[in-house]
């Protein structure tokens, strides 16, 4: 301990008053010392209290919350004893916050320059005349292109990455010595996320700030932090250096969590943690993880103290025994034999949201470039095809066309011998039944006013015309299929956890006994440990029923774990398609390699490589390669001609550069400096 502490959390408990006037603890006896200049990561799943702790470090309590005991000291003085005025000076000044969702955290009715000027007025001694100059410098510091124009914009005119950079600039305006980052990259595309993390790393080196980095993503935390604190049910259960926690995790929860993260370099499905996290405030004594822990003993029910060994502290009785066990990852292999019988066939699919108005037709205005174009996909029965790409790449649009709620402009979609390019209302009952869809967020896809039984009955009544009694019988069978007990039939979705809800959604989809299932980001709204279980369920059902999945995902490691084939999309155009192994390990399209390089892994050594910039595009280019504007290798030809398909076995790449050129580049990726604007 050679450096002074900048922030000390001492035996801190925080609770809120629930509807029944009971005090529910969100944080329980948390202690954490943060040295000046270090970066500490707070990780955990939703509801573990990590965001609450981060905000408490700014002495901010959500309404209804109160400090139960303990204190948080900043430079030695208790934050909760300061006056509103003193806190106002600290917040946004010496203690800066970078929020989770910058888009919603910037005031929508104020231009960027006004918001930056406000921060400078409140938290710097600079004279008014220099504010404009300083604002420009700040925007340059966060690597925003064209800062002059940026100042005159409103928040909604910026892309997600740009908004996040502006939020960072605003925090820097107060020249903070402590920066609290509350899930700063959640919700951003992988490449944007990699760029923002890179920026944060650089800023830390330049300015030497202390950082508290809150995230559910162990990969992102690994990228930034010196030390990691793992939180579970309002407690810190493991605290240690980044390498210690990630390489030799000692708490069973940390181990399980790390194991359940799908990785690019692993084969098969990750094992999942059994059970679900406890409800906030439901654990009063003992180890909160004990009900889910396979090593739990009698003693675990009574208490669990934080035991420190060197600088690695663990809240577990068994950590001593467990440390000796190897922490190897045992993946689950569920081989599914794809058949050679073709099921889904998509040819030259083109979709456009634009509807030409009468006026445009008269004036002969060229319609805008189609959102999705030249899509050719073949999918065999029993296979899993993953569509990958960033937001706006047209993945969901293609799914809408297959499910029949968005009419294609051109092209053919066929299921077996039947035409799927017609609207869903015109399809036969048989055909409707054969194509089913699972949505990203089960909160939204289950009607909150229906019971689970009513939800499952709807497809049964629609497709099979079952009567009430047999519906209930069949619904119970469906629940059993997704490993839920029949007493769930009378629950409302609001009473289920995220993972349970998604299981109900899966059961509903299997009610139609479909051939093809469209999965739209089915696990991205779930916590990592729950995600693994849902992926396993999907794979098992495929084994049992021989269904075919068309899978949308943005997480390439998930794709690696579950898919047989993968298709990479950019701006509605295919870049690369082929078997997962060959696409991920063989020759890459420049966009594929940008995506793969940006992937994070929960490993302190792992460093994503950045290629190109992360500027987001609104429309695909009118001609040439779709990726031309961001591609570091783009030349004249790319902007003029459509690229040809190049085949490397089953791995097909659409690029002007030949395979050899691409292979060479893959092996020696030059780092493109993002700062060169």
């Amino acid at each position, binding site marked *: 301990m050679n450096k002074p502490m900048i922030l000390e959390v001492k035996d801190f408990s925080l609770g809120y008053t*629930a*509807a029944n006037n009971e005090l529910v603890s969100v944080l329980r006896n948390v202690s954490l010392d943060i040295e000046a200049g270090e970066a500490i990561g707070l990780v955990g799943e939703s509801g573990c209290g990590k965001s*609450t702790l981060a905000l408490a470090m700014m002495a901010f309590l959500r309404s209804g919350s109160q400090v139960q005991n303990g204190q948080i000291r900043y430079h030695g003085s208790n934050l909760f004893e300061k006056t509103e005025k003193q806190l106002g000076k600290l917040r946004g000044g010496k203690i800066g916050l970078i929020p989770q969702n910058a888009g919603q955290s910037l005031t929508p009715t104020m231009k960027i320059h006004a918001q930056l000027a406000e921060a400078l007025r409140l938290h710097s001694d600079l004279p008014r005349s220099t504010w404009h100059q300083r604002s420009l410098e700040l925007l340059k510091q966060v690597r925003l292109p064209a800062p002059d124009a940026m100042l005159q914009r409103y928040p909604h005119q910026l892309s997600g990455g740009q908004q996040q950079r502006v939020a960072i600039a605003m925090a820097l305006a107060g020249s903070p010595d402590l920066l609290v980052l509350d*899930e700063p990259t959640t919700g951003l595309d992988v490449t944007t996320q990699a760029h923002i993390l890179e920026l944060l790393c650089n800023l830390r080196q330049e300015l030497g700030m202390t950082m508290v980095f809150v995230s559910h993503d162990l990969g992102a935390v690994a990228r930034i932090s010196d030390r990691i604190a793992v939180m579970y049910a309002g407690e810190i259960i493991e605290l240690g250096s980044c390498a210690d926690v990630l390489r030799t995790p000692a708490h069973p929860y940390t181990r399980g969590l790390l194991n359940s993260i799908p990785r690019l370099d692993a084969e098969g499905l990750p094992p999942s943690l059994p059970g679900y996290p406890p409800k906030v405030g439901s654990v009063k004594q003992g180890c909160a993880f004990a009900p889910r822990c396979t090593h739990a003993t009698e003693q675990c029910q009574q208490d669990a103290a934080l035991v420190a060994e060197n600088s690695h502290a663990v809240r577990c009785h068994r950590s001593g025994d467990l440390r000796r066990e190897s922490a190897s990852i045992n993946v689950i292999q569920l081989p599914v034999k794809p058949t050679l019988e073709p099921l889904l066939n998509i040819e030259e699919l083109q979709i456009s949201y634009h509807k030409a108005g009468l006026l445009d037709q008269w004036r002969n205005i060229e319609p805008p470039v189609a959102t999705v174009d030249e899509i050719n996909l073949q999918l065999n029965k029993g296979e899993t095809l993953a569509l990958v790409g960033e937001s706006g790449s047209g993945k969901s649009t293609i799914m809408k066309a297959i499910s029949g*709620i968005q009419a294609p402009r051109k092209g053919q979609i066929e299921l077996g011998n039947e035409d799927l390019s017609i609207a869903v209302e015109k399809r036969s*009952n048989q055909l409707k039944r054969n194509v089913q869809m699972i949505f990203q967020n089960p909160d939204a*896809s289950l009607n*909150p006013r229906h019971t689970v039984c009513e939800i499952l009955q709807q497809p049964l009544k*629609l497709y099979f015309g079952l009567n009430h009694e047999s519906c209930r019988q069949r619904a119970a069978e469906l629940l059993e299929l997704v490993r839920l007990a029949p007493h769930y039939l009378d*629950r409302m979705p609001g009473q289920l956890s995220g993972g349970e809800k998604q299981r109900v959604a899966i059961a509903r989809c299997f009610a139609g006994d479909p051939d093809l299932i469209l999965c739209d980001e089915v696990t991205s709204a779930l916590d990592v440990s729950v995600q693994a279980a849902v992926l396993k369920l999907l794979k098992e059902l495929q084994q049992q029923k021989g269904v075919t999945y068309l899978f949308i995902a943005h997480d390439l490691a998930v794709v690696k774990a579950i898919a047989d084939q993968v298709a990479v999309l950019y701006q509605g155009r295919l870049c690369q398609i082929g078997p997962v192994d060959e696409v991920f390990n063989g020759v890459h399209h420049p966009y594929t390699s940008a995506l793969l390089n940006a992937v994070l892994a929960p490993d302190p050594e792992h460093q994503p490589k950045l290629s190109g910039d992360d500027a987001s595009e609104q429309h695909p280019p009118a001609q040439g390669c779709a990726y031309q504007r961001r591609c570091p290798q783009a030349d004249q030809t790319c902007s003029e001609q459509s690229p040809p398909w190049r085949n490397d076995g089953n791995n097909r790449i659409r690029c002007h550069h030949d395979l050899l050129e691409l292979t060479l580049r893959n092996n020696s990726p030059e780092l493109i400096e993002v700062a060169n604007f």
Partner: protein
Amino acid sequence: MTAITATHSVPVTKTESRWAQAWKNMRRSPSGMIGLSILCLHLVVAVLAPWIAPYDWTLQNGYIMFQGPDTEYWFGTDNMGRDLFSRTLMGGREAIMVTLLGTLLAIVWGGLAGMTLGFVGGKVDEWLMRIVDALLAIPWLLFLLLIIALTGQQSWTLILTLGFFYGVAVIRVVRGATLEYVPRDFVVAAKTRGESRFTIVTKELLPNVLDALLVEAAMRWAWMLLAFSSLSFLGFGVVPPTPDWGLMIADTRGMISIAPWAVLFPAMALSTLIISINLTADAFAKAIGLDRAKAPV
């Protein structure tokens, strides 16, 4: 990453219906319970009035004009010597009957039209909504008066016109509520499943819009009572000698300096009824987690 949500503490072990939950919440609101009891009292009185009233409410007696309240005439007498207590008891019957039927009509037609418009969307919705806006632009009181002037004062005319006009306002609200749910995934899921439009509107949308619709009904009822009593006040509502609060106030307000009770009691009766509806609606909306004030007009 919201760690704190006050609503998560739904008991998983026992399932309680939403309405039971709402009733439990509502019982915690003192203003709501006061409102509800006054409302119930009003309804009971309106039903039983002919049997409770101590005197004939149309009987005129020139000898006892403007008598103050006493043990014989609890609320005093009016300008024609009629017993005000009996008249006040009876004065809400017509108003409550007409406005309840009117509200029912408004909610049914406005609700159906609003949900359909919200679900269908597109050009049809856009153009029909412009017509709805135009209908809202017509001063409603004038329109009512015009129709009554041309067709005469009949209850069914009032019910139909009030129902139609207030239904137009309901369309806006229900369409707004529907639009909130149409892009939700559960509606998209129903569409991709191939459910018919009718099923989607009645099974998926209606249960979700129902809250807004119920609160809207209570609100419309209060507004309609206001409108009806205003019409009566202007002499276009109830045909004398049937007692009606609005009309009673209009008849006696010129004499307010010598007989304030003659205005006071009908005014109290009318105001407490409307306030009780509003208090109940407010408490109910709060109990089911809706913000009532956001509904336009």
